[in-house]
Structure formats: structure tokens, C-alpha cells
């Protein structure tokens, strides 16, 4: 049986030379910033606010709601289902389309954020490090999933699927590889964006227990 090697991941936040004071400028930024920036602004809150239920929406939605004070745009942006996007370019286009169509429908909307509340585009440099934790069976995995850091859980569930473009999370890929396709599918269809990281950890653990 192939072993599962757990990794950890840590981010350095990089400032980009792009900021927005209104929806039009936000669109311009969304269309032009690197993929790492789109990923950062749609995922940062998951780790930063991992203890909150419900987790706050993505940065774009949060800014539209609180700084532009625009409930309509804010709601539309917070309703974007990230699970439906298989890649960052696809996700970028979905977000851009929401803002584009909003700007088009509201040509006279000149709403600007107050000074000091501009949207600053950022990105991350992510460092991925091997941990000494290695699972050689589902039983071991079931124990290890409780021990790993939230950064490690996040890496295998979020980074692997979208940022690294592996198509599915690392856990499902491993379950499939060790002949547990049903478990793989169940973990793959969990929506990690709808629960806290601790909640997600508990859901994975419960599923694995059923197939041990």
C-alpha cells in the first residue's frame, strides 16, 4: 500500500501594485492580477477565520458589503460557489463576470469606498514543507488526521485541488489509490467551503472511520 505523506504549508503575503476604490477598478484588478492573488482573496479567510461559523465571505464580497456598502454586489460575490470551479482561471472568470455584469447593469453607479478603505490586491508565496507524519493504513490515517495542523489539512484539501491544479484533494486521490473509491468520492464531494476547518477535519475522520 502506498503511504500518505502529510505536508504543511505556510504563506508570505506579497503586496501588488494594484488597488480599487470602486467596482470598475475592482474588475480591472480581478482581470489582471496573477492567479496567486485570486486564490489569496478567495481563500485567505478560511485559515484566518477558521473558527467562525459561518465563515465570512471572500475578500471581494466582504469589501463590496462593508466598504462599498453595496449589498447587491456583495451578495452576488459571496454567492459564488468555489467548488464549481476546477481551476483558478475558471474561478477568476466567474468572479469577473459577476462584477462585469453588475457594472454594465449599473452604469450610473459611482459608489466609491471611503478613503482608507481601498481594496488592495495581494498574493502569496506559499512554502510547502514535509512533516514526519506518514500514514500507511486507514487506521493510521484516522489517527493522524486528528494530529495534523490546520495548515496541513488546508494544504491537502484546498491547495492541492485548486492552487496546485490537481483536480481533487490529496486525501481522495490517496483513498482511490488504495482501493477505496467510494470513500474517495465521499470526501471529494464534501464542500469544504461550507464548514470550519475543524468541522471539516471531523467530517473526514467520521467518513474514514466507516471504511477502516
Amino acid at each position, binding site marked *: 500500500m502506498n503511504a500518505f505523506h502529510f505536508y*504543511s504549508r*505556510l*504563506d*508570505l*503575503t*506579497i*503586496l501588488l*501594485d494594484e*488597488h480599487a476604490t470602486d467596482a470598475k477598478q475592482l474588475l480591472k484588478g480581478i482581470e489582471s492580477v*496573477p*492567479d*496567486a492573488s485570486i486564490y489569496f482573496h478567495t481563500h485567505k479567510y478560511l*485559515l*484566518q*477565520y*477558521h*473558527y*467562525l461559523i459561518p465563515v*465570512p465571505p471572500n475578500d471581494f464580497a*466582504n469589501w463590496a458589503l*462593508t466598504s462599498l456598502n453595496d449589498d447587491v454586489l456583495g451578495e452576488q460575490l459571496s454567492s459564488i460557489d468555489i467548488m464549481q470551479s476546477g481551476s483558478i482561471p475558471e474561478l477568476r472568470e466567474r468572479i469577473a463576470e459577476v462584477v462585469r455584469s453588475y457594472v454594465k447593469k449599473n452604469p450610473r453607479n459611482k459608489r466609491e469606498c*471611503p478613503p*482608507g*478603505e*481601498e481594496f*488592495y490586491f*495581494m*498574493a*502569496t*508565496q*506559499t*512554502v*510547502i*514543507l*514535509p*512533516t514526519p507524519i506518514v500514514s500507511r493504513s486507514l487506521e493510521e490515517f484516522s489517527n493522524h488526521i486528528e494530529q*495534523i*495542523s*490546520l*495548515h*496541513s489539512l488546508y494544504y491537502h484539501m484546498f491547495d492541492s485541488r485548486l*492552487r*496546485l491544479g490537481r483536480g481533487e484533494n490529496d486525501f481522495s486521490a490517496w483513498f482511490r489509490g488504495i482501493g477505496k473509491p467510494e470513500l474517495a468520492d465521499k470526501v471529494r464531494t464534501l464542500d469544504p467551503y461550507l464548514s470550519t476547518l475543524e468541522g471539516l477535519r471531523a467530517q473526514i475522520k467520521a467518513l474514514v472511520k466507516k471504511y477502516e
Partner: protein
Amino acid sequence: MNNLQEYAPIVGEATIYDLFLLAKRLEGKSIQNINSTSVGGGVAEILTRMIPLLKQLGLDARWDVIKGNEKFYAVTKKFHNGLHGVPVEVTDEEFDWFLEVNRANAEEFNFADIVFVHDPQPIALVEKRPSIGKNWIWRCHIDSSQPDKKIWSFLERYMRKYDATVFSAPAFAAPMPVRQVLISPSIDPLSEKNRDLTETTVQEVFERFGIDRSRPVVTQISRFDFLKDPLGVIKAYKIAKKSHDMQLVLAGGGATDDPEGPMIMEQVKEEADKDKDIIVLFLPPSSDFEINALQRGSTIVLQKSLREGFGLTVAEALWKGKPVIAGAVGGIPLQITHQHSGILTHSVEGTAQWIKRLLNEPTFAATLGKNGREHIRNNFLITRHIKDYLLLFLSLYYRDDVVHF
């Protein structure tokens, strides 16, 4: 000096372990911090705590201080004020003297593999780079969101010579062809200002200051200057007081460069004389313990700043699980997400309204405080600061978006 393992019960074993994993990747690299003073000020405070912790991680980390005379520091004081947006006049002769002092210091230093320069005073040491190589980082600890153009343009010539620059908030940076990194400051949960205190200790401090804890206490800890808006705080308190019994505590130092400072302090005193429930405390700089107790014993903590560098008093209060109402300026929105981990306001009226709501809804207020503490635990403690510095050092050697070890 604290041991790194003492932080494990606070941030978790995994966080400490991650620091060791990162530090291992920097094995063999020497790291030199350079600033302008070994005591006093935020930079010296953080380096005093951080260098021993970096050493515990097995890193060859050290800290050097540049030497300058009174004339040099008079010029750098102007730089400091200029970065803060205060119009200043610096003569060519003063610029020349600044460079001369930097060059003299550069000749004396034995530079490490990574040279981490803090604030404007030693910024021109980087002139040495073409002849000695090394990796150079400059960190600006100052709110430079509206700098004096002449000062910024002088300093920018040197910023551009670094491998990376670091700012505390996005608004403090400006477009330039050098990698710019966001690293927020942090608080130390084991320091005198933030360590746990017993309820009895907190009560004793309140009694010493004559504050009645059987009634709600709304507190702002800040210097008495215009930008911290103590008069706005008093106005908000007066509006809220119409419907809720409460006391207002304004505590902080009086030392300030703000020319309007003395006038504002006079007005605050006048207001306090008219209302026995406004308690004004002028605290000396060595009052970390008292500030800790005041924050812990308050019902609500305010930080109604009109402009703010980073506003670490917000992190301090949130760490103590307090509901915080703060102005949405500077680094405060990085610390508070409105209605999740605290309250962001833009006016006296808004602040008053939220004071009333939080006093009326203690369960919601407690949830804000609980979330706020978790947010600080994850994002604004010294362990996160160390992690960011280690990543920053690594980024000098690895440039890809994703670095897979």
C-alpha cells in the same frame, strides 16, 4: 526571556513545530538586524523579544545598532515626521550628513548573509551592496500612507536597492520595482502588557484608580492627541450615557509631537471635571501592567482613531477577549472584521450606537470578544511574526509562487 515552548499551550504544538521546520531550511545562513536604538520604541521592543526566540530555533541571528550623533538623529526625526505626512524641510547638507553617517557605519559592520534593516535611519547602508553582495531587506515600521513627497523620493532611491521591502499595512507601500511584503506587527502574549492576570489583581488596579466595576466601564487606551480622537470618544460616551449608566476611562501617555496635543489634553480635563464618570488617567511609559489590567477589567474597549499606524492596542484588547469598537483606519480593519471579530465605525454617532448595542446585548458582545481573541491568536501573536520573518528570509533564495520542499 521566554522559551519558545512556553508559547505552545497558547498557539498549539503544530505552530511551534512549523517554525522549526522553516528554520531548518535556513541552516547555515546568518541573519543581522540593524536599527537605530537598542532601547525604547516598538522596533527595539520586538527585536529584544524576537532575537532570543530566533536563536532558540537554531538560527544565527544577531542585532546591531547604528551609531549617530545628535545632528544625525535630528535629520532622521525629520524623515520620520515626513513619512507620517508632516511637511518638513531637509537641506542638502542634512541629506549629505545622513549619508555620511550611514557610510561610516557601513565601514564598521561585519555584514551577515541576510541584512535586515529597520526604518529610515540605517536605510542607506545598502549602498554597500554592490561591493559586498549579501541579501538585503528593508522594513518600514512607520505609517507612510501620506508621506512628504521629497522625503519619500529620497528614501525610495534606497528602497529600490533592496531585495525586498516590508510594510505593516497595504496602504503604507507604493508601487516600485522591488518585491513588497506585508508583515503585520504582533503582540507577545507572555509580555507584561498581555500576560494573564487574576481577577483579584485586575480588581486591585481598578480600585487603585477609583473605577467602579459594578457598573459598565468603557475604556480607550491611547495617547492624548488629535488622531486618537479622545474628544470624539467623550461625545460618543455622552450620547450613549443618555440611555445607559456607564463610566468612561481615558488612559494613556501625554507625550506627543502633535502641536494640538496640549489643547486637546486641556479639553479632555475640562470634560472630566464636569462629569465624575469620566476618568482620565495619565500613565507613565512603564505602565504595561496597569494597561493590561484596565483592558481586562473593561466592559468595552474603544479605539476611535481618526488615523492609525497599525493600532496594536486593538490586538491587545481583542487578545483579552474584549469587545472592541474601533475606527476603520490604518491597520485596524486587518484586526477586526466588522460584526465578526469586533465593530468598525466611522463616526461619533456610530460609535455611540454600538456602545449602546453591545451594552444591551452582552451575549453578542461576548461572541465578538471570543472571536477577536481567536483572530489574534491566529494572526497577530509573536509566533506568527517569527513565521513571517522566516518565510521572508527564505523568499530571498526561492522566488516561485509555490516553493515545494
